[in-house]
């Protein structure tokens, strides 16, 4: 199970959008994933249960991500192809065993 955390300012708007689109991307790819969303302030407490953090450029600068967690930064959140490519590249690099 891959654990993905979507982060934005208040954990309601942007991160929810990411959560929804990532869930559908993971389904399509057949990757088992647990997708959560939270605010930047809450992000640290989620790190122990997170493999990949995905967020926008504003927040990626502000979140301290441990070395075992991959950080993905997306600018266009509704471009599903782009988000998919970013995620697939990261999974291939850091968690290749999850992509079957």
């Amino acid at each position: 199970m891959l654990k993905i955390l979507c982060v934005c300012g208040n954990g309601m708007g942007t991160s929810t959008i990411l959560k929804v689109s990532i869930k559908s991307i993971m389904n399509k790819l057949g990757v088992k994933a647990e997708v959560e969303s939270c605010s930047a302030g809450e992000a640290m407490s989620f790190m122990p249960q997170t493999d990949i953090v995905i967020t926008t450029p504003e927040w990626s600068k502000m979140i301290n991500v441990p070395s075992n967690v991959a950080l993905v930064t997306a600018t266009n959140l509704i471009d599903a192809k782009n988000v998919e490519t970013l995620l697939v590249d990261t999974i291939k690099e850091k968690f290749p065993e999850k992509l079957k």
Partner: protein
Amino acid sequence: MLKELLRDHELIEVGVEAKDWKDAVKHGVEVLANEDFVEIKYADSIIESTLTNGPYYVIAPGLALPHSSAEDGVKKIGLSIITLKEPVEFNHENDPVDILITLSAKDRNTHLEMMTELVNILIQEDFMDNMRKCKSKEEIREMFLKD
């Protein structure tokens, strides 16, 4: 839920004139306020939050989803859709912005359903470009209502 919302309320405006991003945010909130989803002061809360945290809700080229945390004048969950006559700058990589979908949300779980529907519509290929071609709110409404 999103379809019912857009069918039963007047939440869409086309060709809105806004002189800057703050003005655009106010117009988006006004549409929500006219249908009693928020109090007009919700606009101040979004503007304040934007000045503090940046316009991180500009989530795609030309598209902003202004919103703020729950307590600041939100009455019920909803959203308004406005397209601008002339785009405005939010000082974000995805500038200039000509579509604003202003969100009023009570908490993150109740609006998940609405957001899921919204995202699944927006991620359709060419949806945004087709939206920009709409000349009336009825055309936009139809785009959102059809499956």
